[in-house]
């Protein structure tokens, strides 16, 4: 097996408090980022449609054009779907570009599928936001290395507010 995200922070970020292990039959919703194709061509097209000096300037692609360009290969789609079905994943749904797959799995199924993962409940921030995340890094079978970029829903926590209500600015002297 291999780790698709060896450099992803997986410790609990500041502001979040662990509440204990998730129960094995609790349900998770995980997002699988499937490997795309023709990314160099995509970069070229972005340059072409965004440079005012280019004859292609402003001639944007439709979602269908983008799909045709980047959608995962049939082998990737088949391999990932077989892998997920074998683990008991259900209610999987894709997006138009087919390069993301979101599935429902129980904690038990997910921890079997993503070896090393261990799901816990957390709460954080002034709004007491809840999240279920893995307190340990995950690994995938090596056969999936060419087909999966990463799995969403294990390590990255929702953001906590950054806005500040600053005290009224004190301007010395010159104004009443």
């Amino acid at each position, binding site marked *: 097996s291999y780790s*698709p*995200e060896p*450099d*992803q*922070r997986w410790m609990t*970020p500041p502001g979040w408090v662990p509440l204990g292990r998730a129960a094995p039959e609790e349900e*998770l*919703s*995980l*997002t699988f980022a499937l490997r795309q194709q023709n*990314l160099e061509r*995509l970069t070229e097209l*972005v*340059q072409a*449609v*965004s*440079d*005012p*000096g280019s004859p292609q*300037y*402003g*001639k*944007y*692609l439709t*979602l*269908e*054009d*983008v799909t045709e360009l*980047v959608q995962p290969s049939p082998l990737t789609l088949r391999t990932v779907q077989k892998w997920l079905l074998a683990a008991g994943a259900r209610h999987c749904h894709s*997006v*138009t*570009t087919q*390069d*993301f797959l*979101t599935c429902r799995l129980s904690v038990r199924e997910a921890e079997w599928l993503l070896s090393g993962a261990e799901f816990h*409940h957390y709460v954080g921030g002034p*709004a007491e*936001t*809840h*999240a*279920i*995340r893995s307190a340990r890094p995950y690994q995938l079978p090596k056969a999936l290395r060419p087909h999966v*970029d*990463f799995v*969403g*829903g294990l390590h*990255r926590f*929702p*953001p*906590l*507010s*950054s*806005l*500040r*209500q*600053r005290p*009224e*600015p004190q*301007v010395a002297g010159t*104004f009443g």
Partner: protein
Amino acid sequence: FHLGVTPSVIRERYNLTAQDVGSGTTNNSQACAQFLEQYFHESDLAEFMRLFGGKFEHQASVARVVGKQGRGRAGIEASLDVEYLMSAGANISTWVYSSPGRHESQEPFLQWLLVLSNETTLPHVHTISYGDDEDSLSSAYIQRVNTEFQKAAARGLTLLFASGDSGAGCWSVSGRHQFRPSFPASSPYVTTVGGTSFQNPFRVTNEVVDYISGGGFSNVFPRPSYQEEAVNKFLSTSLQLPPSSYFNASGRAYPDVAALSDGYWVVSNGVPIPWVSGTSASTPVFGGLLSLINEHRLLSGRPPLGFLNPRLYQQRGEGLFDVTHGCHESCLNEEVQGEGFCSGPGWDPVTGWGTPNFPALLKSLVNP
């Protein structure tokens, strides 16, 4: 004389007239996205427009809310985004994306990216208040999200991200302090918006750096060719550069532009709240003005602006007020004493090319 930033102050500072509003006759549209699980209440927007929207034509309700809304308390950030996107980009169809009601095991920002990959028709301009330290994210995730931004750019969407509210940031790497860049602000395929303050907080004057304005150099993405000249000029002429060990001078530099980020009035849960600050305020303001420019482009049969940076840097900040005073915050230590980068003539990693002077910006971006 004013007691904080309201739509009138924004429209005065950036030279918007009462005519600078959407025509209501095009398919123009804009969207704001925030991921703090906050609710947005239509009643707050209506109250905000009743209090502050009397002098310009505007819409008092959003066209579409993506993401489950509930009856919970509204959040200041959700209210701020919508209220200033719809008063800067006035009378333009507006979507709100927020993520309450997501499953606890989902990542809100990733769910928003899935929406972009699933909707055939999307607003032209998106303002997004979200950022994480680059070093806390895996390269697999960062590179893939960067590809998602390229997919959006290829489709002609303009993505504006807040540059962050921690100045240059700071962290310790093997015992030495370094600045801490933020992602997605550091992606070369988005336009990043920094923050400014009025030199005199109670008057509509020239703008100086807001010390929280996020900015710096990516440790992940190399400098894109479109900003080579501008950034090299800054690095070779700035008189107040921090020690080179604090930042990666060959990285993608950001922000690209800026707008006021200090002392906003917001209506949330029916209450007018003063002195709200952050680059998640400046971002919808800049986004709203780009929507107005799209309005003119669409009315003359041109495509929307799309990914703005190549053109912005080619035009060397034409149509923007250059901000040349002030520095943003960074590491509190003997060496840099809390000071990160400082603004200067032309582009700089605190306010980018500067803040919008609408008539001049419109003139520079309406053709071709």
